[in-house]
């Protein structure tokens, strides 16, 4: 018997790139994150062959979950063909052999930067969101050791104060994307820099959402059917971005999140941000039900409230 008979053939990289120890750690951290919705679980975070800050957190989670039968969709700013999404998809496919798709409803794993698709995701699907900054308290406490203590005590007074100051100074909430939200009535989380249009989609969602920050080495989760509440005062409701009057120039769709395209003549045209959804409309393929219907009504009745101007 020779040594070569006892060993496997040499391979350049492990399945899914990460070694088995790294995958085990990531899966255990993911289980803990699911068990404590919104709680930031620290993890070691390996270096990957793409730059930090370019989706390495999401990518580690995807690589820990992906199998040969997985169907993976990757989007950046809603687009499958954005250069960074294309690069990540190419890497996941190269390292796992998983098949890929641009169809939200076919994907078993959907990795995204800055968007949640318009079509309602289903039970059994996993949404992996890339997170630049997992710490919602960074706005009021840059020291993470102190911020961790505030989370432990559910001491969110400074967040509420910040919200109040926004109303005093600007007569409205001015946080743009990455709107801080309370998960399961306990932890405030950053939902990743998705627009406010997408934040309500996390509430009582049928799918699992895993949020992962590779550079900051934190992972957290919104399990299926969990309450997610953007921070708001009872008398001044949270507001999504106004898409009223915006019509997609190629599909004619309305009341979806639009890219605004400045024109030479000073005007602007609009197109759907969700390229997979646009593709279905263009090719007359029946898209699935969407979170916002064509009149702009959100699918959970009464969850979003009309604007109220503070006195």
């Amino acid at each position, binding site marked *: 018997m020779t040594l070569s008979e006892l060993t496997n053939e040499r391979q350049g990289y492990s399945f899914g790139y990460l070694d088995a120890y790294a995958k085990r750690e990531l899966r255990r951290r993911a289980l803990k994150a699911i068990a404590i919705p919104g709680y930031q679980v620290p993890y070691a975070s390996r270096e990957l062959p793409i730059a930090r*800050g370019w989706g390495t957190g999401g990518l580690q989670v995807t690589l820990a979950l992906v199998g040969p039968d997985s169907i993976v969709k990757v989007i950046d700013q809603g*687009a499958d*063909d954005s*250069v*960074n999404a294309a690069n990540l998809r190419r890497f996941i496919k190269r390292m796992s052999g998983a098949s890929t798709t641009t169809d939200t409803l076919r994907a078993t794993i959907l990795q995204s930067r800055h968007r949640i698709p318009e079509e309602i995701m289903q039970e059994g699907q996993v949404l992996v969101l890339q997170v630049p*900054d997992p710490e919602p308290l960074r706005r009021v406490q840059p020291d993470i050791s102190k911020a961790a203590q505030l989370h432990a005590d559910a001491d969110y007074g400074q967040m509420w104060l910040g919200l109040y100051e926004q109303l005093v*100074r*600007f007569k409205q909430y*001015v946080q743009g994307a990455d709107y801080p939200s309370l998960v399961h009535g306990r932890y405030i989380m950053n939902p990743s820099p998705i627009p406010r*249009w997408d934040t309500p989609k996390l509430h009582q969602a049928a799918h699992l959402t895993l949020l992962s920050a590779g550079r900051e080495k934190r992972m957290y989760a919104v399990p299926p059917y969990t309450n997610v509440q953007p921070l708001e005062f009872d008398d001044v409701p949270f507001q999504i971005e106004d898409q009223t009057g915006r019509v997609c120039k190629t599909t004619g769709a309305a009341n979806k999140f639009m890219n605004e395209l400045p024109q030479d003549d000073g005007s602007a045209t609009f197109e759907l941000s969700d390229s997979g959804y646009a593709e279905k409309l263009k090719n007359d393929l029946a898209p699935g039900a969407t979170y916002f219907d064509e009149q702009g009504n959100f699918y959970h009745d009464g969850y979003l409230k009309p604007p109220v101007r503070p006195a």
Partner: protein
Amino acid sequence: MYVAAKGGEEAIQNSEALYGALNGALTLDMVRAIQEGMPYLVDRVMGEGSLYAPELAALALAQTGGDLYEAVLLLRAYRATQPRIAYAHATSADKLFTVRRISAAFKDIPGGQVLGPSLDYSHRLLRLDVLDEERAALNREDAETTSVGTRHASSVSAPSAVQSIPSSVTNTTDAMNGVPTSTYPALADWQRAQGLLPPTEPEQIAPADIPDVTTDTVMFPAPRAHRLQALARADTGGVLALGYSIMRGYGLIHPTVNELRLGYSEVELTHPVTGAVFSVGRVRVSQCEVITPDAGKQGYMLGFAATMGWNEVKLIAASTLDMDMAANDGDGHAAHSEEFVMYHTEPVEASGFCIHFKLPHYVTFASSLDNIRKMAAAVGWDDGKGAQTPGPSAAMDEAEQVG
């Protein structure tokens, strides 16, 4: 085109091909030239990449056209895939094969000061004669239409390029490997014997059980092992900037270089079958100690840093940071805070996050734009009544805190 309706994949492949074309051919000769001719650059990439592999570090530099951060990332990403097959025994200062060893604290120290290889006292004059020699050689080539090989040989054999190696180094050189084998005691041992420094007991811990910043979750306050590992692989420029801020005026202390060493360390393992301790090779290492009076303890305290490869400026700055982090009362300048220093000197994370701002951000920008327009509609800051209301830029600052 940055985001195409179709063709994103093709675009990134073309972009990479163009980058490669502008950098010239990637050849084994180029890798060898970098490895042999630029040891300090290779050391820096190995140190920050935390992988001792001169050939791979040279390859990383060649492959990236000398972009340091990209080279470090290449090495780190490769390293992350490699299994740990064994743990080396701890080494110590008195076991290092030392080629350079200086102390600013005493004129003479046990074992003596060893100046060793250094540019410290060189005149920083460009060696234009090398270019002249090269041009002369080229002219000769043109005149004589000699083979390409002559050009390389003539520049190497030019008298001005030949360095005489100090006898103090050659006298103690291991004939087998060209590596000096002189060892020197640690100055800190003398200071401990004098009662100037508190006595230390080496922690009894198996090498495999030492906290590892590359596979552990880092929490604060971090174990000292994490701190020293983080400094060892920290960005040289980042460590220098923070260390310099302390030295210049935001420090708790004035660092005196107690001992700075460049040398070679044996990498010793225990054989898994026979149990014998043996060396698998030697690596270039450097270490630095700075010393300062320890207020309230009637003695001194040390700051320490070490790294793979030779990198003096980084280690003086890093050992100063180590000392200030130890003395931090939790309320000082940011460079005294372990969390601040460790997070912000990490080269792969800092550079990666910085360049990620090149990625499209138009969803987040659209989100903030929505707020700005709603505000303009609500308060009208340009109608003359808005003087008391903060303008759009203030709101943008609050709305734009996203990555």
